[in-house]
Protein backbone atom coordinates (compact mmCIF):
# COMPACT_ATOMS: atom_id res chain seq x y z
CA UNK A 1 0.00 0.00 0.00
CA UNK A 2 1.29 3.40 -0.92
CA UNK A 3 1.30 5.89 1.90
CA UNK A 4 0.47 9.41 0.89
CA UNK A 5 3.39 11.38 2.21
CA UNK A 6 3.16 15.10 1.81
CA UNK A 7 6.41 16.40 0.35
CA UNK A 8 8.47 18.62 2.67
CA UNK A 9 8.10 21.86 0.65
CA UNK A 10 4.33 21.47 0.63
CA UNK A 11 4.29 20.83 4.37
CA UNK A 12 6.37 23.95 4.83
CA UNK A 13 3.95 25.92 2.69
CA UNK A 14 1.00 24.64 4.72
CA UNK A 15 2.71 25.64 7.93
CA UNK A 16 3.47 29.12 6.70
CA UNK A 17 -0.09 29.53 5.44
CA UNK A 18 -1.55 28.40 8.74
CA UNK A 19 0.72 30.80 10.57
CA UNK A 20 -0.22 33.67 8.30
CA UNK A 21 -3.92 32.94 8.83
CA UNK A 22 -3.71 33.23 12.60
CA UNK A 23 -6.05 36.02 13.61
CA UNK A 24 -4.22 39.28 14.09
CA UNK A 25 -5.57 39.52 17.63
CA UNK A 26 -3.23 36.70 18.56
CA UNK A 27 -0.48 39.33 18.55
CA UNK A 28 -2.42 41.97 20.41
CA UNK A 29 -0.27 43.39 23.15
CA UNK A 30 -3.11 44.54 25.40
CA UNK A 31 -4.59 42.34 28.08
CA UNK A 32 -8.03 43.78 27.33
CA UNK A 33 -10.11 42.50 24.43
CA UNK A 34 -10.21 44.80 21.39
CA UNK A 35 -12.98 47.36 21.07
CA UNK A 36 -16.19 45.83 19.75
CA UNK A 37 -16.55 48.59 17.20
CA UNK A 38 -14.00 47.69 14.48
CA UNK A 39 -13.73 51.32 13.42
CA UNK A 40 -12.85 52.40 16.95
CA UNK A 41 -10.36 49.57 17.25
CA UNK A 42 -8.74 50.64 13.97
CA UNK A 43 -8.48 54.23 15.22
CA UNK A 44 -6.97 53.01 18.46
CA UNK A 45 -4.44 50.81 16.67
CA UNK A 46 -3.51 53.61 14.28
CA UNK A 47 -2.97 56.00 17.17
CA UNK A 48 -0.84 53.74 19.37
CA UNK A 49 1.34 53.09 16.32
CA UNK A 50 2.14 56.79 16.17
CA UNK A 51 2.98 57.38 19.81
CA UNK A 52 6.57 57.10 20.92
CA UNK A 53 7.44 55.03 23.94
CA UNK A 54 9.72 57.38 25.86
CA UNK A 55 11.38 54.57 27.77
CA UNK A 56 12.55 52.82 24.60
CA UNK A 57 12.57 55.71 22.24
CA UNK A 58 12.73 53.93 18.92
CA UNK A 59 9.59 51.95 19.58
CA UNK A 60 5.97 52.94 19.48
CA UNK A 61 3.80 52.16 22.46
CA UNK A 62 2.12 49.55 20.24
CA UNK A 63 5.43 47.67 19.98
CA UNK A 64 6.76 48.13 23.44
CA UNK A 65 6.42 45.90 26.45
CA UNK A 66 7.63 48.64 28.77
CA UNK A 67 5.31 49.18 31.73
CA UNK A 68 4.94 52.85 30.81
CA UNK A 69 3.78 51.88 27.30
CA UNK A 70 1.18 49.57 28.84
CA UNK A 71 0.00 52.39 31.11
CA UNK A 72 -0.26 54.78 28.18
CA UNK A 73 -2.19 52.27 26.09
CA UNK A 74 -4.56 51.71 28.99
CA UNK A 75 -5.02 55.46 29.38
CA UNK A 76 -5.64 55.93 25.64
CA UNK A 77 -8.09 53.01 25.55
CA UNK A 78 -10.01 54.49 28.44
CA UNK A 79 -10.15 57.91 26.80
CA UNK A 80 -11.25 56.50 23.45
CA UNK A 81 -13.76 54.21 25.14
CA UNK A 82 -15.29 57.31 26.68
CA UNK A 83 -15.58 58.89 23.26
CA UNK A 84 -12.42 61.00 23.05
CA UNK A 85 -11.27 61.66 19.50
CA UNK A 86 -7.80 61.45 18.07
CA UNK A 87 -7.17 65.16 18.62
CA UNK A 88 -8.09 65.02 22.29
CA UNK A 89 -5.81 62.06 22.94
CA UNK A 90 -2.92 63.71 21.08
CA UNK A 91 -3.40 66.95 23.05
CA UNK A 92 -3.47 64.95 26.28
CA UNK A 93 -0.18 63.25 25.45
CA UNK A 94 1.60 66.35 24.18
CA UNK A 95 0.58 68.34 27.26
CA UNK A 96 2.34 65.76 29.42
CA UNK A 97 5.22 64.45 27.36
CA UNK A 98 5.83 67.13 24.74
CA UNK A 99 5.85 66.98 20.93
CA UNK A 100 8.55 64.31 21.00
CA UNK A 101 5.94 61.74 21.95
CA UNK A 102 4.43 61.96 18.46
CA UNK A 103 6.07 60.03 15.66
CA UNK A 104 4.09 62.18 13.25
CA UNK A 105 4.77 65.72 14.51
CA UNK A 106 2.03 68.26 14.08
CA UNK A 107 2.37 71.02 11.49
CA UNK A 108 3.18 74.15 13.47
CA UNK A 109 5.86 76.90 13.45
CA UNK A 110 8.47 74.74 15.19
CA UNK A 111 8.01 71.94 12.64
CA UNK A 112 7.67 73.98 9.44
CA UNK A 113 11.27 73.28 8.51
CA UNK A 114 10.77 69.60 9.21
CA UNK A 115 7.66 69.27 7.05
CA UNK A 116 8.72 71.77 4.42
CA UNK A 117 12.37 70.71 4.20
CA UNK A 118 11.95 67.82 1.75
CA UNK A 119 9.81 69.90 -0.64
CA UNK A 120 12.31 72.76 -0.36
CA UNK A 121 15.22 70.52 -1.30
CA UNK A 122 13.31 68.89 -4.17
CA UNK A 123 12.56 72.34 -5.60
CA UNK A 124 16.14 73.48 -5.00
CA UNK A 125 17.39 70.37 -6.77
CA UNK A 126 15.10 70.96 -9.73
CA UNK A 127 16.25 74.58 -10.01
CA UNK A 128 19.92 73.57 -9.94
CA UNK A 129 19.24 70.78 -12.43
CA UNK A 130 17.40 73.14 -14.78
CA UNK A 131 20.23 75.68 -14.63
CA UNK A 132 22.89 73.09 -15.38
CA UNK A 133 20.77 71.71 -18.19
CA UNK A 134 20.28 75.16 -19.68
CA UNK A 135 24.01 75.95 -19.46
CA UNK A 136 24.83 72.69 -21.22
CA UNK A 137 22.27 73.31 -23.94
CA UNK A 138 23.72 76.75 -24.53
CA UNK A 139 27.08 75.19 -25.36
CA UNK A 140 27.80 74.29 -28.99
CA UNK A 141 27.55 70.57 -29.56
CA UNK A 142 31.15 70.02 -30.65
CA UNK A 143 32.41 72.89 -28.55
CA UNK A 144 35.49 72.51 -26.46
CA UNK A 145 35.48 73.60 -22.87
CA UNK A 146 37.71 76.55 -22.40
CA UNK A 147 40.02 76.12 -19.43
Amino acid at each position, binding site marked *: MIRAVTPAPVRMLMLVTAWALLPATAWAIDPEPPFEDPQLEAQYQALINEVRC*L*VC*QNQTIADSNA*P*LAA*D*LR*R*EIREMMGEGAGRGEVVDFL*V*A*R*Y*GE*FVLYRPRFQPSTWALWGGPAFFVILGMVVFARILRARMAQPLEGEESP
Partner: protein
Amino acid sequence: MWRYLVPVSIFAVLAAFFYRGLSLNPGYVPSPLLGKPAPEFELPRLKDPAATMGSRDLDGQVALLNVWATWCVGCRQEHGFLVDLAESGGIPIYGLNWKDDRQTALNWLTDLGDPYVASAFDELGEVAIDWGVYGAPETFLLARDGTVLHKHIAPLDEEIWARDFLPRIAEQCGSLPCPLETGE
Protein backbone atom coordinates in the same frame (compact mmCIF):
# COMPACT_ATOMS: atom_id res chain seq x y z
CA MET B 1 35.00 81.12 -6.92
CA TRP B 2 31.36 79.96 -6.55
CA ARG B 3 32.44 76.51 -7.58
CA TYR B 4 34.28 76.20 -4.26
CA LEU B 5 32.24 78.46 -2.06
CA VAL B 6 28.95 76.63 -2.53
CA PRO B 7 30.08 73.11 -1.53
CA VAL B 8 32.21 74.46 1.29
CA SER B 9 29.32 76.45 2.73
CA ILE B 10 26.94 73.50 2.36
CA PHE B 11 29.48 71.38 4.22
CA ALA B 12 29.83 74.02 6.92
CA VAL B 13 26.06 74.17 7.46
CA LEU B 14 25.77 70.39 7.61
CA ALA B 15 28.73 70.15 9.96
CA ALA B 16 27.16 72.72 12.27
CA PHE B 17 23.85 70.80 12.32
CA PHE B 18 25.54 67.48 12.96
CA TYR B 19 27.82 68.94 15.63
CA ARG B 20 24.80 70.27 17.47
CA GLY B 21 22.53 67.32 16.78
CA LEU B 22 24.95 64.58 17.67
CA SER B 23 25.96 66.18 20.93
CA LEU B 24 22.35 66.31 22.16
CA ASN B 25 21.24 63.66 24.58
CA PRO B 26 18.26 61.89 23.01
CA GLY B 27 17.29 60.53 26.41
CA TYR B 28 16.56 64.04 27.62
CA VAL B 29 13.03 65.09 26.78
CA PRO B 30 12.25 68.56 28.10
CA SER B 31 9.06 68.60 30.12
CA PRO B 32 6.22 70.70 28.74
CA LEU B 33 5.21 71.28 32.36
CA LEU B 34 8.08 73.70 33.07
CA GLY B 35 6.73 77.06 34.13
CA LYS B 36 3.20 75.69 34.29
CA PRO B 37 1.07 74.74 37.27
CA ALA B 38 1.84 71.26 38.53
CA PRO B 39 -0.89 68.71 37.76
CA GLU B 40 -3.38 68.21 40.57
CA PHE B 41 -3.36 64.82 42.21
CA GLU B 42 -4.50 62.92 45.24
CA LEU B 43 -3.34 59.41 46.09
CA PRO B 44 -3.24 57.08 49.07
CA ARG B 45 -0.14 57.46 51.19
CA LEU B 46 2.43 54.72 51.03
CA LYS B 47 2.68 54.34 54.80
CA ASP B 48 -0.98 54.89 55.56
CA PRO B 49 -3.33 53.79 52.76
CA ALA B 50 -6.29 55.31 54.58
CA ALA B 51 -4.80 58.81 54.36
CA THR B 52 -4.12 60.67 51.14
CA MET B 53 -1.32 62.81 49.83
CA GLY B 54 -1.70 65.29 47.03
CA SER B 55 -1.41 68.80 45.69
CA ARG B 56 -2.82 70.19 48.92
CA ASP B 57 0.20 68.91 50.86
CA LEU B 58 2.59 70.62 48.48
CA ASP B 59 0.74 73.93 48.32
CA GLY B 60 2.44 76.98 49.69
CA GLN B 61 5.91 75.46 49.91
CA VAL B 62 8.98 75.37 47.78
CA ALA B 63 9.25 71.60 47.66
CA LEU B 64 10.61 68.62 45.77
CA LEU B 65 8.54 65.82 44.34
CA ASN B 66 10.75 62.81 43.78
CA VAL B 67 9.47 59.92 41.64
CA TRP B 68 10.92 56.67 42.91
CA ALA B 69 10.43 52.94 42.90
CA THR B 70 12.20 49.96 44.39
CA TRP B 71 12.70 48.45 40.92
CA CYS B 72 14.62 51.53 39.86
CA VAL B 73 18.39 51.25 40.11
CA GLY B 74 19.01 54.99 39.79
CA CYS B 75 16.70 55.57 42.75
CA ARG B 76 18.93 53.46 44.96
CA GLN B 77 21.90 55.41 43.66
CA GLU B 78 20.43 58.79 44.62
CA HIS B 79 18.77 57.66 47.84
CA GLY B 80 21.73 58.49 50.07
CA PHE B 81 21.82 62.02 48.69
CA LEU B 82 18.10 62.48 49.34
CA VAL B 83 18.49 61.26 52.91
CA ASP B 84 21.32 63.76 53.47
CA LEU B 85 19.30 66.52 51.86
CA ALA B 86 16.31 65.75 54.08
CA GLU B 87 18.51 65.76 57.17
CA SER B 88 19.93 69.16 56.29
CA GLY B 89 16.32 70.28 56.57
CA GLY B 90 16.40 72.83 53.81
CA ILE B 91 13.55 71.71 51.67
CA PRO B 92 10.66 69.29 52.11
CA ILE B 93 10.91 66.24 49.86
CA TYR B 94 7.72 64.46 48.85
CA GLY B 95 7.79 61.08 47.19
CA LEU B 96 5.75 59.61 44.39
CA ASN B 97 6.16 55.87 44.64
CA TRP B 98 5.63 54.76 41.06
CA LYS B 99 4.25 51.35 40.02
CA ASP B 100 5.66 49.61 43.00
CA ASP B 101 4.77 46.96 45.53
CA ARG B 102 3.70 48.53 48.80
CA GLN B 103 5.49 46.12 51.13
CA THR B 104 8.73 46.20 49.12
CA ALA B 105 8.63 49.99 49.13
CA LEU B 106 8.06 50.12 52.89
CA ASN B 107 10.98 47.74 53.44
CA TRP B 108 13.18 49.95 51.25
CA LEU B 109 12.41 52.99 53.40
CA THR B 110 13.10 51.02 56.58
CA ASP B 111 16.40 49.70 55.27
CA LEU B 112 17.76 52.76 53.47
CA GLY B 113 16.16 55.58 55.41
CA ASP B 114 13.12 57.68 54.61
CA PRO B 115 13.90 61.17 53.27
CA TYR B 116 10.26 61.88 52.43
CA VAL B 117 7.79 63.99 54.34
CA ALA B 118 5.32 61.57 52.77
CA SER B 119 5.13 59.35 49.74
CA ALA B 120 2.11 58.92 47.53
CA PHE B 121 1.45 55.40 46.28
CA ASP B 122 0.78 55.44 42.52
CA GLU B 123 0.23 51.77 41.86
CA LEU B 124 -1.24 52.14 38.36
CA GLY B 125 1.02 54.98 37.27
CA GLU B 126 -1.92 57.27 36.48
CA VAL B 127 -0.63 60.30 38.34
CA ALA B 128 2.81 59.66 36.84
CA ILE B 129 1.30 59.99 33.35
CA ASP B 130 -0.25 63.34 34.33
CA TRP B 131 3.20 64.48 35.43
CA GLY B 132 4.81 63.26 32.22
CA VAL B 133 7.00 60.80 34.08
CA TYR B 134 8.82 58.33 31.86
CA GLY B 135 11.89 57.20 33.72
CA ALA B 136 12.49 57.13 37.44
CA PRO B 137 14.18 58.73 39.22
CA GLU B 138 12.68 62.08 38.31
CA THR B 139 12.69 65.09 40.58
CA PHE B 140 10.42 68.10 40.23
CA LEU B 141 11.14 71.42 41.91
CA LEU B 142 7.90 73.19 42.78
CA ALA B 143 7.32 76.82 43.67
CA ARG B 144 5.02 77.98 46.45
CA ASP B 145 2.22 78.65 44.00
CA GLY B 146 2.58 75.13 42.59
CA THR B 147 4.47 76.08 39.45
CA VAL B 148 6.94 73.50 38.12
CA LEU B 149 10.31 75.27 38.26
CA HIS B 150 12.55 72.45 37.17
CA LYS B 151 12.54 68.78 36.35
CA HIS B 152 15.57 66.58 36.67
CA ILE B 153 15.59 63.13 35.08
CA ALA B 154 18.31 60.80 36.41
CA PRO B 155 19.77 60.34 39.88
CA LEU B 156 20.42 63.49 41.86
CA ASP B 157 23.77 64.28 43.39
CA GLU B 158 25.58 67.14 45.05
CA GLU B 159 26.85 68.60 41.79
CA ILE B 160 23.50 68.59 39.98
CA TRP B 161 21.82 69.94 43.09
CA ALA B 162 24.21 72.88 43.27
CA ARG B 163 24.07 73.55 39.53
CA ASP B 164 20.39 73.11 38.66
CA PHE B 165 18.40 73.39 41.86
CA LEU B 166 20.03 75.84 44.24
CA PRO B 167 20.02 78.83 41.83
CA ARG B 168 16.33 78.28 41.09
CA ILE B 169 15.52 77.97 44.78
CA ALA B 170 17.51 81.13 45.44
CA GLU B 171 15.31 82.98 42.96
CA GLN B 172 12.29 81.89 44.95
CA CYS B 173 13.35 82.61 48.47
CA GLY B 174 16.99 83.52 48.82
CA SER B 175 18.68 80.85 50.87
CA LEU B 176 17.31 77.60 52.26
CA PRO B 177 15.22 76.83 54.18
CA CYS B 178 12.46 78.64 52.34
CA PRO B 179 10.04 80.19 54.77
CA LEU B 180 6.51 78.89 54.51
CA GLU B 181 4.00 81.10 52.85
CA THR B 182 2.06 82.92 55.51
CA GLY B 183 -1.62 82.92 54.75
CA GLU B 184 -2.41 86.59 54.95
